[in-house]
């Protein structure tokens, strides 16, 4: 058998399509190894399940970074400035102005030369005081010098200023533009736009708004009324791209799910197809070898399982018991162990069992286990290989399909899960194609690669088997 397989593999190399398939499989395996090594599974699950707090500094529904190249446009990336971590462009000074009163001044500046307006702006602050909360004024200064007072307040505790959804700021901005151009903007102006747009009449139309490039500044002035009082803030200007795969509606990096989806898909597909094939073969062998009552029993059980509707049963099981992906795998294996394959393998074994070389083996005294393991099974394995390779793709798809139907494992980041989220998030409706298409593409090339290799293996192994 080893010679047949070795020869078979050698001739695989002479098929171009198989080489492409094998290259893709190798790549997927490479990705899997990298992923497992770089992001531990628990960490991946934690990140995926963490909720918005962990991902608060990531943009929502951001495109993958490579969108910039496709659109030939520099899409903004996320900019973060933190007053507690001084760096170039971040200044914080506290000057005493009396016995207990101090004056706080924070200046943040950043260059912005992207071709699009950021998606969102948030300011997170921490505050410390004894009796009286500090008095804070935040001012936004655009590159052309336009000063916009954002907010004046006494922060009583740590918190966040969601600038993009500040309704009062929005209406003040509309008013400012009305004063300046004598006309209201024709659309619902958000602070994000007015803070980043060129200050001319183009700002009045949604389609003509242009980004003002240059150095932006956030200036904060405060009165610290207690001796121990302090105030720090973190400015997050959310971009429109994130990572290589973008983010979803919960700001999560889709890349994590795509990366982790690879080893999960491959493991799920391989374990399912190999174990189902081996179990079916073993059952078929037992059925054919022992015959009689054993055979009858196995055949009836197989028929019951064949008529049992696979998907509905699986859906029923997984709704009754909230199960994780590996339990789903187990259920799939159990449901398919007595699949139609049993009948095929039984037929093959029945035929092989009667062959003269088996008779010869019995004649020189070989026992049943030796005959089955050494003389029967190795004959069947080459025929199994193409089928196993084919069905890997089927099971990868099955896992994704289950996730899309919402009966997958909610914990584990998988390709199917991303597709499901994208459906619920209205990705295609909102034009967030990357969200759906990236996992779909991975599914596609995975099944394509296994199909290509399986097809070639079929060509190689099956005619040879007919011949020998």
């Amino acid at each position, binding site marked *: 058998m080893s*010679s047949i397989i070795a020869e078979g593999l050698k001739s695989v190399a002479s098929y171009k399509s198989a080489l492409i398939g094998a290259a893709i499989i190798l790549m997927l395996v490479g990705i899997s190894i990298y992923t497992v090594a770089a992001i531990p599974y628990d960490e991946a699950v934690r990140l995926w399940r963490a909720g918005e707090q962990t991902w608060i500094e990531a943009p929502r529904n951001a495109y993958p970074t490579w969108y910039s190249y496709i659109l030939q446009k520099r899409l903004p990336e996320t900019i973060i400035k933190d007053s507690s971590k001084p760096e170039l462009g971040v200044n914080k000074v506290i000057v005493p102005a009396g016995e207990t009163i101090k004056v706080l001044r924070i200046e943040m500046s950043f260059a912005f030369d992207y071709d699009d307006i950021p998606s969102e702006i948030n300011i997170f602050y921490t505050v410390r005081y004894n009796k009286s909360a500090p008095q804070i004024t935040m001012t936004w200064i655009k590159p052309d010098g336009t000063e916009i007072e954002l907010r004046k307040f006494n922060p009583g505790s740590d918190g966040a200023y969601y600038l993009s959804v500040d309704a009062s700021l929005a209406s003040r901005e509309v008013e400012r533009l009305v004063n300046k151009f004598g006309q209201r903007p024709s659309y619902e102006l958000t602070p994000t736009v007015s803070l980043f747009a060129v200050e001319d009449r183009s700002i009045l139309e949604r389609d003509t708004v242009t980004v003002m490039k240059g150095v932006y500044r956030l200036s904060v002035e405060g009165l610290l009324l207690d001796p121990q009082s302090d105030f720090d803030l973190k400015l997050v200007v959310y971009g429109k791209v994130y990572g290589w795969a973008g983010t979803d509606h919960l700001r999560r990096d889709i890349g994590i799910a795509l990366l982790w989806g690879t080893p999960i898909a491959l493991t799920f597909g391989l374990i399912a197809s190999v174990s189902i094939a081996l179990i079916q073969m073993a059952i078929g062998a037992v059925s054919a070898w022992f015959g009689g009552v054993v055979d009858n029993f196995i055949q009836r059980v197989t028929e019951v399982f064949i008529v049992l509707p696979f998907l509905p049963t699986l859906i029923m099981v997984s709704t009754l018991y909230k199960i994780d992906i590996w339990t789903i795998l187990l259920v799939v294996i159990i449901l398919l162990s007595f699949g139609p394959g049993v009948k095929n393998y039984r037929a093959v074994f029945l035929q092989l069992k009667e062959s003269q*070389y088996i008779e*010869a*083996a019995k004649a*020189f005294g070989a026992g049943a286990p030796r005959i089955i393991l050494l003389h029967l099974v190795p004959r069947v394995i080459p025929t199994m290989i193409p089928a196993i390779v084919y069905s890997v793709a089927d099971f990868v798809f099955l896992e994704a399909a289950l996730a899309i139907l919402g009966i997958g494992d909610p914990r584990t980041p998988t390709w199917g899960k991303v597709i499901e989220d994208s459906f619920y998030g209205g990705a295609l409706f909102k034009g967030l194609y990357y969200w759906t298409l990236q996992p779909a593409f991975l599914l596609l090339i995975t099944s394509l690669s296994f199909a290509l290799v399986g097809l070639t293996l079929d060509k190689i192994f099956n005619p040879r088997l007919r011949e020998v």
Partner: protein
Amino acid sequence: MTTESLVRTEELRIYFPVRKFFGTVGEVKAVDGVNLSIGRKETVALVGESGCGKTTLGRALLGLVKPKSGKIFFDGTDLTILSERELKLMRRRMGVVFQDPYASLNPSFTVYRIVEEPLVVNKIGSKEERREMVLKALEEVKLNPAEFFASKYPHMLSGGQRQRVAIARAIITKPEFVVTDEPVSMLDASIRVEILLLFREIQKKHGVSFLYITHDLATAKYFSDRIAIMYAGRIVETGPTKAVLSEPLHPYTQALIDAIPDPDPSNRFVMRKIPPGQPPSLVNPPKGCRFHPRCPFFMQGKCDVLEPPMYRVGVERFSACFLHEEKVTIK
């Protein structure tokens, strides 16, 4: 009867159930009351039409099918009452060569492993000893150089070479008895003689007893000491090969020989045509003598009523036909 017989059957019956949906609807009486003995160092040819039960009889002698009734003695031990374990030990002393050299070798094994396998199974010798034995066996069947052939797979060999591998496998455990089931019928005519010569050589050298199953009278004549003619599950005539072929006693044997179209000087006894009529059904064999529907000497009220016993007709010659009734005494 040969005084010292190695293999002997007594009223051996082997029936296969005929199944239909649920339950058994009848039985194929593949072997139905066979008495056959094979002496030490003797070659017995078993000749008959296709489907008359030759292979089944051969398999039974190896303990590969359980008989319905009767006994099979191998060197005095009744195989039919042995357990599977004891049978395995006995099988070490037997070998088998099948008809189809393409089907009788495991295609995923090398020649070396194929020939070594009986030794491994029977736990004979150390690894080095086994290697020596395998190479010697390959040399013995004229697969030279042995090392070269040992590394080959069956699909790399010709039919004749494969059959030699099968022979090497059959003789590796130094058996006393070898069943060869039509070992040359699938081979090219030019190779047949070589293989048969090889059998003869092995027999001379090791003193092996052979059961040579064939439907080719020419090779039977060439190769065997004694011949047994089988018809529909029963032996109808036995005797020294030359005598039986030159002077057949049973009408069926006569018909077999007459069916040879061209008895030219080279005596090519090749069975071209079966005697007129159809071989009978083994599920419902004819009453009385099974050959009576086709027999030219059919005697109404006798042949279709009574089963003819084996008559002794001369030295070492037996025939189951009522024609001998007056001439001879019952065996």
